[in-house]
């Protein structure tokens, strides 16, 4: 038998392995756009939903004010540390607003604003960052996972939760947030792969703000865009202008809808910029130029929306003032409430380590109790 006689020989010859692992060929549709998707300032803005946009605007203004207030609280010693999202408010707000009541948000350590925009009391959202216990709220009540300090580790959680909900027949989508730096972690890879294999109803939102602390994206990846990473998992990748709240909301809404209707996970890369330093403790001048920051100031998410809405008559001076007033009220309340020292009970150290305290913990608790009593007495 010669090669020519082999069954099916020729350019397309291949034995017929079970379809389960035959290479698929529908690659191209997975490729993200080469340019970030935009709405504001483009013809697509004609279709804006005025109601939604007014809500976004109010939240953006409030979010900006929240960021300023939180940073001020670090200076007053009321917060141990604060990673600001000034410049990234469009992503934070869109992520919060796009979810239905029953959906879950998985924030990264930076995303207190998204949690607040979702309705969480800001004092609760900031519990960790003021040096109090880690999670100042019941994650199940708010369907907001604890802020994740270890980068990217929240992503597999989101996948598992979404998968579990689907197994139980519940209509729940999980939206997981991560930074550009976080995409380099193994957990990012494993989470996206699990999500795609399980077709779990998850949306991954990468906020590409250009830096992981001081490390610029060029040292983080050589990918054309982070959205291109979707290709390798067999999930769609979308690239969006992260300072354009209308665009981010639309892209996320599509992805959430896709997840909700059984279409599986989506990877969304939102291109944005962190205007403040990494945290109040960081010195951003060490790794970036003022010019770069100034260029991004021209592309401010709050101003972009304000201009568009004003130009289109969706927003007027009164609306702007109202938003600002509401933001000031929130900030004043936050300032005041954060000025009260939280009262922590040292004996709580031994609570919630296990469902039931072990003998060893009871002994250690007794020791601390005695120390505290002795201190109190003298």
């Amino acid at each position: 038998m010669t090669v020519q006689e082999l069954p099916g020989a020729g350019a397309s010859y291949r034995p017929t392995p079970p379809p389960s692992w035959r290479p698929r060929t529908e690659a191209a549709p997975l490729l993200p756009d080469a340019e970030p998707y935009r709405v504001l300032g483009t013809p697509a803005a004609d279709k804006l939903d005025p109601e939604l946009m007014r809500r976004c605007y109010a939240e953006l203004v409030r979010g900006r004010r929240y960021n300023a207030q939180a940073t001020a609280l670090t200076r007053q010693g009321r917060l141990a540390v604060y990673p600001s999202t000034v410049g990234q408010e469009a992503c934070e707000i869109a992520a919060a607003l796009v979810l239905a009541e029953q959906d879950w948000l998985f924030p990264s350590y930076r995303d207190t604003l998204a949690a607040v925009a979702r309705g969480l009391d800001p004092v609760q959202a900031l519990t960790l960052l003021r040096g109090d216990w880690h999670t100042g709220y019941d994650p199940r009540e708010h369907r907001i996972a604890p802020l994740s300090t270890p980068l990217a580790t929240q992503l597999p959680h989101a996948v598992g939760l979404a998968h579990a909900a689907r197994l139980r027949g519940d209509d729940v989508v999980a939206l997981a947030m991560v930074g550009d730096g976080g995409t380099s972690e193994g957990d990012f890879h494993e989470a996206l792969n699990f999500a795609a294999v399980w077709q779990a109803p998850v949306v991954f939102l990468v906020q590409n703000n250009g830096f992981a602390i001081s490390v610029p994206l060029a040292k983080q990846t050589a990918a054309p865009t982070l959205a291109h990473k979707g290709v390798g998992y067999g999930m769609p990748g979308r690239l969006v202008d992260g300072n354009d709240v209308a665009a981010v909301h639309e892209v996320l809404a599509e992805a959430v809808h896709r997840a909700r209707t059984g279409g599986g996970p989506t990877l969304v890369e939102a291109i944005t910029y962190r205007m403040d330093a990494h945290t109040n403790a960081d010195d951003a001048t060490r790794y970036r130029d003022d010019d770069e920051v100034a260029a991004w100031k021209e592309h401010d998410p709050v101003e972009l929306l304000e201009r568009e809405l004003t130009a289109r008559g969706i927003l007027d001076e009164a609306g702007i003032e109202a938003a600002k007033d509401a933001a000031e009220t929130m900030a004043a309340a936050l300032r005041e409430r954060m000025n009260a020292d939280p009262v922590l009970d040292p004996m709580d150290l031994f609570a919630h380590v296990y469902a039931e305290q072990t003998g060893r913990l009871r002994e250690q608790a007794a020791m601390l109790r005695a120390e505290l009593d002795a201190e109190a007495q003298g």
Partner: protein
Amino acid sequence: MTTVAVKPATMAQALGRALRDAMAEDPTVHVMGEDVGTLGGVFRITDGLAKEFGEERCTDTPLAEAGILGAAVGMAMYGLRPVVEMQFDAFAYPAFEQLISHVSRMRNRTRGAMPLPITIRVPYGGGIGGVEHHSDSSEAYYVATPGLHVVTPATVEDAYGLLRASIASDDPVVFLEPKRLYWSKSEWNPDTPAAVPGIGKALVRRAGTSATLITYGPSLPVCLEAAEAAREEGWDLEVVDLRSLVPFDEDTVVASVRRTGRAVVVHEANGFGGPGAEIAARITERCFHHLEAPVLRVTGFDIPYPPPMLEKHHLPGVDRILDTVARLQWEN
């Protein structure tokens, strides 16, 4: 209730039966890991579960341990009770960050709002001729991590009972399965399983008066054999099976050592910084004036796990245990 007629006789079968019974009783119990579905696991512990309960409840995952445990965290957040299989001891290491930074702390960091009832099954230890990375005794890492329970059976009955208790626990449990006892047998009748012992109770497996051997998992049979052999030397050794390293049942151990006045801790894990150090230190704290001699340890050497051809020299054996008992200052 399940209708499977096979009568479990080995520890492997008892573990499988425990999984099956737990899944049958509680629809939130989900088994997941590499090869646990179609294949039934490389040790066949999960054999038949996918068939009986469907692939959605016994799931072959992609090959990624951090992903497996991380996904299990999310599932537990939603109210499921995942039972995760790590294929071998050393292959649990990629999941370490998820284990330490999340699994062990989630209850604590949410002030009790979000406990994670995850059972992590890890076949561990040597003695089966496994090549490199297949024979680690990794319990020291788990023991040093607050928020985890660490449980390990040494008998067929305990394998069933402790696994049921672990799955039922509202806390995360690292469930260490002694590989070389998988094929140990017992007359145990699976249809009338003994009452499930709670997690955290040690058991005196053999009463004695001269000294106490404290051990767990794969070293229990070795200690019992040593205790028999010791009778020739005139020593009547008590043998305590810890069954759970966290919580550590100090009271049972302390009561025994106060009775006998001498103690040797035996385990396969490396000695330096191993669980035996904690046990010895704690016994000394609580039994100081009852001790006739320092608490000694017989453990794996402080070396990476050796090749199969040399492992017998590394593992605590009867002779080494007896030699150590002999060093308990009997002449004093």
